């Protein structure tokens, strides 16, 4: 039980950090490096496209978490004998 709860904690922590860090880093990375340095777009356009890119990355991360939770929970559905009454 302790190893499985540790692994669940690790998975949830990994995905939470990914969901929080990925959109913010995508926003600033695409804004500063990709749009302003490489393409030289204006400030408003680079802001908007970076925001859209970060929202897309956010939803990809959320979809990955939902898929993982769905497949994992189906796998460990039937081990209820460690319930403490």
């Amino acid at each position, binding site marked *: 039980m302790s190893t499985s709860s540790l692994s*669940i904690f690790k998975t949830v922590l990994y995905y939470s950090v990914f969901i929080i860090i990925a959109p913010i880093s995508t926003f600033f990375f695409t804004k500063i490096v990709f749009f302003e340095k490489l393409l030289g777009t204006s400030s*408003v356009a680079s802001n908007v496209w970076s925001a859209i890119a970060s929202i897309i990355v956010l939803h990809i991360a*959320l979809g990955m978490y939902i898929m993982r939770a*769905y497949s994992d*929970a189906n796998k*460990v559905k039937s081990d209820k004998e460690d*319930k403490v009454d």
Partner: protein
Amino acid sequence: MALSEENPVYGPFFGVMGAASAIIFSALGAAYGTAKSGTGIAAMSVMRPELIMKSIIPVVMAGIIAIYGLVVAVLISGNLAEPAEYPLYRGFIHLGAGLAVGFSGLAAGFAIGIVGDAGVRGTAQQPRLFVGMILILIFAEVLGLYGLIVAIYLYTK
């Protein structure tokens, strides 16, 4: 200072209030969604601790509402300037963008909280409810996304 009728000294006030209301109301909705679905998760996990991973999803979706508000607040804050370079019209636009994403996030956070609370309690007893809960949560989440789209569209005016 070239202040005129189009560039009054109180022009940036509207933009600042837009940035503040974007994050304040989104965070309010996200906090309600997290707290309400958190009570459901805590009540459900006593009997079915193996469903933790599935039941965290409403909390993650409530957190995403706050990220919408954060994105718009950062966008608006990046465009704020001295009153001489900041016309009143742009202040109104930014106030509208902030209120659009803020109140949409508040509504979406309320919906996620109530659906998440009832959904995780029901999933503990009938696991096939999970797909339905995810669908309802996605439709609640999309309300906040509509507000974000309107806010970004206003911001580009």
